[in-house]
């Protein structure tokens, strides 16, 4: 049973309530649309996250295999020396994008494909090159996965919030407004009936005189 809102039974209040009801219904429609868009985006990002995670694990295993071969071929100390020379800072462009009112982060790795990696190509084997390529691909995938995962989390939170608003509108606000409007109509009809019977009574009394 929806709860009645405490209002004075006047026409002005009825007009105000009807205005509030139309606003609530309009917002309900828009918020429901927003929820469906957020769900669509959430499902898509969830699928992409699962795919990216699988891809990253595969890339990691490939990179690990390639690095093992490179270590076996060059030796650990020589490889470490080359890797120290190839150390570079990562540059990631960060920003945000908006998905139906929810702000999600956006990351982009800058200059992922490098022409030179800092070590001499003449002194090192092709295994090291292959390892470096794999590692760079891993880095790219990590950045993509980070973006997807944080987006997924933020969208999930936004969906929860929007769902609460939709439920509040659907089960609380709109029914209580409708019930109050119905109550006011009944009250006005009751007043009309009272007025009619009073007039009839007065008429009878006047006729008796």
């Amino acid at each position, binding site marked *: 049973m929806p709860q009645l809102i405490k209002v004075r039974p006047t026409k002005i209040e009825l007009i105000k309530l009807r205005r509030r009801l139309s606003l609530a219904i*309009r*917002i309900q*429609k*828009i918020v429901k649309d*927003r929820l469906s868009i957020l769900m669509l985006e959430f499902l*898509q990002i969830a699928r992409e996250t699962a795919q990216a995670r699988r891809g990253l694990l595969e890339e990691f295993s490939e990179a690990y295999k390639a690095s093992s071969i490179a270590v076996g071929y060059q030796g650990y100390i020589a490889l470490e020396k080359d890797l120290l020379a190839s150390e570079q800072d990562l540059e990631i462009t960060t920003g945000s994008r*908006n998905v139906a*009112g929810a702000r999600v982060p956006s990351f982009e790795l800058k200059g992922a494909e490098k022409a030179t990696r800092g070590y001499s190509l003449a002194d090192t084997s092709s295994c090291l090159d292959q390892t470096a390529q794999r590692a760079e691909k891993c880095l790219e995938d990590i950045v993509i996965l980070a973006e997807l995962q944080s987006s997924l989390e933020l969208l999930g939170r936004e969906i929860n919030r929007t769902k609460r608003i939709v439920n509040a509108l659907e089960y609380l606000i709109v029914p209580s407004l409708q019930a109050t409007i119905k109550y006011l109509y009944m009250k006005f009809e009751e007043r009309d009936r009272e007025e009619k019977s009073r007039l009839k009574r007065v008429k009878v009394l006047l006729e008796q005189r």
Partner: protein
Amino acid sequence: MSKDRQMPNESPYQRMLQECLRGELRVLNAHLPCEQKALSALLTDEYPNVVCHDGSTHLFKRRELEYLAGMLDTDEQAALLLPILIEANPGQDEMAIICRGKVEDKVTAKILDMPVTTKQKRIMLYKPQLALIRKSLKTTTQYLFAPKSSSTLAPL
């Protein structure tokens, strides 16, 4: 909420709900850009972005811009305004891409790999099609919530 709109016996809970709903309407389209930028201009920017109505910046991914540039010639790149707006109408299953020229048509048709028709400067899309577009153009498209249904809106 203004005083004339308040109910005399309105509970604080009711007032809070009403305020929350009004806030929801306010923030719904706050993420829209103040002005759209041409693809050709964005490609030359170091950090391609647009400023939104709420003061925040919306960053475009270079990968997406290059993907779009790959399917358009130089004139079309100058004609394509980004972000492309996707209009959501309350209570309708389809959404619409707002297009000002033929470029949006071309981009949509290429991504969907099927011909599209424009009606009242809008390309109607079903949700699976929308998912395809959003998958390839995540940052270069944005949602727009129309307060009324598109049939009642005047053409752009």
